[in-house]
């Protein structure tokens, strides 16, 4: 409990690391995660720091490892993830590791390059065979006109000329054939047409099986095309266009024999390539398998190494350049461990002079460390989301553990819903070691991280559900109702009694739509229900009126208790920070202000509950009117709650009124008085100046002493002395603003707690609506069809219950509970201006591959 109530005490320590052992020491520290390093080279840009070279080397290693992981993943070889994380590699091994990795990379790159080349070659050959196969059909179509031109009927007279002419033309008839990406066919054809003005014949056919693109490795659909054209000029253009559209152009065989020859040649080559490719792939796989064994530990090691060098970059060198000086924040409780870690590190590296540390006093505010476990973590996160607590401040998370689920449950009060939520959370908690849950994403992760919050929320909702007597909007009659209906009938009473009371008889029961139970009739009300609301209210038409009154009063009472508790926690803060005057001048007036108005309201509520019974309920005064009259002093006297009420109220009001000026002016004036050397106000000026001089001298003396000490300890002097300047105006303004906020806040915050009532009302009404609209309809249908209907109805009911009532309403209640804590509760005492303690720990490094493959 102690550690959760306040953050731990921290101290600033200086580590003197011998330059030879610094690496090992930091490695030992990183494993333990004890300390947070301070950056001593803030004004040195990142590339001018000491260990930039080493960091660069780590990055180079990371690059190689990323490449390895990528290749291994591509080859579908499982990457074993080690259970334990290996320690950072000793410096001697780093070089070895680097060499080994570089060699591996070179080898791998070469093999993959070869493989890619072979693959590309193979793909091209396959494409070529496909092309040949498809274009054969084109030619068959062309055959019809081909002979006509080749065996052009020679005219008798100038056959020679004609023949040579044909020869020339025949020589220029060219073919270009190849494959083109499916998407580009249309544009390609259009461009061909435009450029060659129609002097080409394009035939193309879709390839029935998709092939891999040798360049990108994508599997896409291809078209085989054959362009026949006349003339060299056009030929050039066609080739250029083919280039432009990234067609794969292959030589086109002119004769059938040539085609056959090529095809046979291709087939044998493809066979050869297949075998070679297989061998290469096998080899590659072997290499990768071997690499996969050690890659995990290498990744972790390099990460650790890089982290160490980053931390070393934050240290400064001492004058002799022999040792590094690091400044760290360390929890006082861990100082012993820190010393041991340093010793371990020094011993490991076999240094003659051990590294050592000493603590130095500082005036800077240390970071906040609150140790949490898996149970308290979620609640601490709720608080931290508002603001990390200032150093050594009271930590509201401790109380949030109970108050948060409780306030949630007040809004979410339903036995059934709460139980479902509890079961869900219990499932998460029981399976919390399941790896799937730990690596879950986004929303599921959110639920998983808040599993203990959910568990408590569910549990408390069960409790408040029992109090409200709501289970899926229906009341449960566990102990038997305290109301007896039969007692209302006139026959059950003696005739003498009958006259005094309004009783039922047969005609009344038959004629009236609503009947009223009168608790003052003896026997009708047999005492309160043992736990929560009497189930009979579930049948009553004035149920809402009754519940509203109850819930409204309850939320005001809870709210005021919650806020008062906040103010009291403020007192603990003032005590701890040795500002006792704050208690008398701030906390006590605040408490008086709150209690005299709203505490009295609670008193009236409870008093009315206790004093007035069913018989006297008609004369009971309205609390609202009484409360308003407390401020307005009306002329006409009402009959109050108790005798002497007026005097008590006046007294309370006077106390309230008096506490306001104290709240506004007390602290600033007190501080002014302190600052002026505790002299009284209005004393002669000379005395005041004299004392002031004295105190100034004192201050300067103290200051120089401090500075000297600082010089002795170390020279870099980056620790600045912040001497707080006294500014009366500023303090006054802050206090006035704070007071106004508090006084107005008391009213508005109290009203704000009414959301407890509003949300629980909304929840109850919504579940009621769901019941009446769905299940009631299903139950009304007569038995034969009802069974068929009930099944879908209940399914729908379950789905809507989960999504609307559990998730949606749950989120809204969660949100409001958070708000009540952040705003209404925490602004009474919590500053939340601290910084979180982030230790240098290897555990914070992610130990997954997914991050470094990105």
């Amino acid at each position, binding site marked *: 409990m102690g550690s959760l109530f306040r953050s731990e005490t921290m101290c600033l320590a200086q580590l003197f690391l011998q330059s030879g052992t610094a690496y090992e020491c930091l490695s030992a520290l990183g494993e333990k995660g004890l300390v947070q390093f301070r950056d001593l080279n803030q004004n040195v840009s*990142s*590339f001018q720091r000491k260990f930039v070279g080493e960091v660069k080397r780590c990055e180079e290693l990371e690059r190689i490892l990323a490449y390895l992981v990528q290749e291994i993943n591509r080859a579908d070889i499982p990457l074993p993830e080690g259970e334990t994380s290996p320690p950072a590699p000793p410096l001697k091994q780093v070089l070895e590791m680097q060499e080994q990795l570089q060699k591996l990379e070179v080898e791998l790159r070469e093999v993959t390059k070869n493989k890619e080349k072979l693959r590309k070659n193979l793909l091209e050959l396959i494409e070529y065979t496909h092309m040949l196969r498809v274009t054969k059909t084109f030619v068959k179509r062309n055959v019809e006109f081909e002979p006509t031109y080749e065996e052009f009927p020679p005219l008798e007279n100038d056959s020679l000329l004609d023949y040579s002419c044909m020869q020339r033309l025949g020589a220029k008839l060219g073919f270009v054939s190849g494959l083109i990406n499916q998407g580009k066919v249309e544009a390609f054809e259009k461009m061909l047409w*435009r450029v060659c003005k129609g002097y080409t014949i394009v035939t193309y056919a879709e390839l029935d099986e998709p092939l891999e693109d040798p360049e990108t490795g994508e599997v896409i659909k291809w078209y085989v095309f054959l362009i026949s054209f006349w003339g060299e000029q056009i030929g050039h253009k066609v080739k250029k266009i083919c280039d432009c559209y990234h067609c794969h152009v292959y030589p086109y065989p002119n004769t059938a024999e040539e085609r056959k020859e090529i095809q046979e040649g291709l087939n044998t080559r493809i066979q050869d390539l297949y075998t070679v490719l297989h061998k290469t792939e096998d080899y590659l796989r072997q290499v990768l398998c071997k690499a996969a064994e050690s890659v995990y530990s290498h990744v972790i090691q390099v990460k650790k190494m890089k982290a160490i060098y980053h931390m070393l970059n934050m240290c400064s060198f001492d004058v002799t350049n022999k040792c590094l000086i690091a400044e760290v924040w360390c929890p006082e409780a861990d100082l012993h461990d820190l010393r041991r870690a340093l010793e371990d590190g020094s011993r490991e590296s076999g240094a003659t002079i051990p590294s050592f540390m000493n603590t130095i006093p500082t005036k800077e505010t240390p970071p906040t460390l609150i140790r949490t476990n898996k149970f308290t973590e979620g609640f601490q996160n709720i608080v931290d989301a508002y603001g990390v607590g200032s150093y050594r401040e009271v930590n509201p998370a401790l109380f949030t553990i109970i108050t948060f689920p409780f306030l949630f449950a007040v809004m979410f009060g339903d036995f059934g819903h709460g139980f479902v939520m509890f079961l869900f959370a219990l499932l998460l908690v029981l399976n919390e070691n399941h790896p799937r849950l730990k690596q879950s994403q986004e929303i599921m992760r959110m639920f998983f991280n808040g599993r203990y919050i959910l568990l408590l929320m569910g549990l408390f909702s069960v409790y408040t559900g029992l109090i409200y007597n709501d289970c899926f909007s229906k009341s449960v009659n566990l102990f038997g109702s305290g109301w007896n209906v039969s007692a209302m009938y006139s026959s059950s009473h003696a005739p003498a009694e009958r006259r005094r009371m309004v009783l039922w008889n047969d005609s009344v029961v038959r004629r009236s739509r609503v009947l009223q139970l009168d608790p003052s009739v003896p026997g009708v009300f047999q005492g309160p229900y043992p736990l929560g609301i009497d189930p009979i209210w579930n049948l009553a038409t004035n149920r809402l009126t009754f519940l509203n009154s109850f819930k409204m009063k309850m939320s005001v009472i809870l709210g005021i208790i919650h806020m008062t508790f906040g103010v009291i926690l403020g007192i603990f803060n003032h005590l701890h920070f040795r500002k006792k005057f704050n208690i008398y001048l701030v906390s006590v007036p605040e408490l008086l202000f709150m209690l005299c108005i709203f505490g009295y309201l609670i008193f009236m509520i409870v008093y009315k509950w206790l004093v007035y019974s069913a018989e006297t309920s008609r004369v009971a005064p309205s609390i609202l009117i009484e409360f308003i009259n407390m401020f307005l002093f009306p002329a006409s006297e009402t009959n109050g709650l108790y005798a002497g009420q007026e005097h008590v109220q006046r007294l309370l009001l006077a106390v309230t009124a008096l506490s306001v000026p104290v709240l506004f002016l007390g602290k600033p004036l007190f501080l002014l008085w302190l600052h002026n050397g505790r002299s009284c106000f209005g004393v002669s000026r000379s005395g005041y100046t004299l004392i002031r001089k004295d105190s100034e001298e004192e201050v300067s003396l103290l200051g120089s002493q401090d500075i000297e000490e600082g010089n002795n300890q170390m020279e870099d002097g980056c620790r600045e002395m912040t001497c707080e300047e006294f500014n009366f105006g500023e303090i006054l303004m802050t206090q006035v603003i704070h007071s106004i906020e508090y006084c107005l806040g008391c009213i508005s915050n109290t009203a704000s707690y009414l959301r407890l009532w509003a949300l629980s009302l909304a929840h109850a009404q919504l579940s009621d609506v769901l019941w009446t609209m769905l299940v009631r309809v299903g139950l009304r249908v007569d038995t034969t069809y009802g069974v068929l209907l009930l099944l879908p109805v209940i399914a729908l009911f379950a789905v809507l219950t989960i999504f609307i009532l559990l998730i949606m309403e749950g989120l809204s209640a969660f949100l409001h509970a958070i708000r009540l804590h952040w705003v209404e509760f925490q602004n009474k005492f919590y500053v939340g201006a601290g910084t979180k303690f982030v230790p240098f720990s290897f555990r914070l490094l992610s130990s997954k591959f997914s991050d470094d493959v990105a």
Partner: protein
Amino acid sequence: MLEGAEFYFNVDHGYLEGLVRGCKASLLTQQDYINLVQCETLEDVKIHLQTTDYGNFLANETNPLTVSKIDTEMRKKLCREFEYFRNHSLEPLSTFFTYMTCSYMIDNVILLMNAALQKKSVKEILVKCHPLGRFTEMEAVNIAETPSDLFNAVLVETPLAPFFQDCMSENTLDELNIELLRNKLYKSYLEAFYKFCKNHGDVTAEIMCPILEFEADRRAFIITLNSFGTELSKDDRETLYPTCGKLYPEGLRLLAQAEDFDQMRRVAEHYGVYKPLFEAVGDGSGGKTLEDVFYEHEVQMNVLAFNRQFHYGVFYAYTKLKEQEMRNIVWIAECISQRHRTKINSYIPIL
């Protein structure tokens, strides 16, 4: 278009605008530049850029690092962002994006044509092309021999087609003609873009029109400056000026008559916007060049574009600012790699 873009703008473009504003926040700051300038080697530059929004974009580069590698990677990054914007955009923002890419496309076409003239291989030049202006038909540019050829065969289906109306001629493509073609294309492109923004109205017009006006006038000045001492006639020169700027029509007529830098300066002095710019130009040794001054002014306009909301100008401004940032980094990296530190500080700071 209806008035009051704020009513419906976010429905279609709110997400992208938010995104681009986030991207703008990741531009390098003054402090980053100060640190970059202190770098000793390109490795240092890489390390420093890692701490900025560029992240480890150079992580997969094998050693040794060169300026061109940095440049390509930065371009790729910009291109990725731009493609993302473009793929998620709706009309008319997507048309706006198309207009934005057109200028890069023009540059690429001209680059390829020049290369074809010098008989360089297409592959080699493709690497140099700006990735934002890439399109499939681009590689076929070298088929064409005349501008009309180029239009009919290659560019008729690209967004560049409408800009070709004024430059259809049967001239063969020599170096001068290609340059003329570029300027004519730019002229019609700027005018079309200007018209598009003007017609769109709203804040977009209010932001984009001044930027495009400035762009047009800058081209007019640069064309004038470059044409001194060439065989380009004054009438020809006038036909190249984009007519959507502030200089139109009087200033352009005067510019067409200008014969040296001083005369040009005199023309600029009639305009309140350009007068201070020309005054800032140092003469001869030291001082800024006209180009730098123009760049600075452009940066300023682009930064100011972010002060208004509900308009497309932010996308244009962001791309231009990013380009300027890339030029700065390349400049600094170039100075570092060539050990030419005296000029390293003459990058153009982005405010």
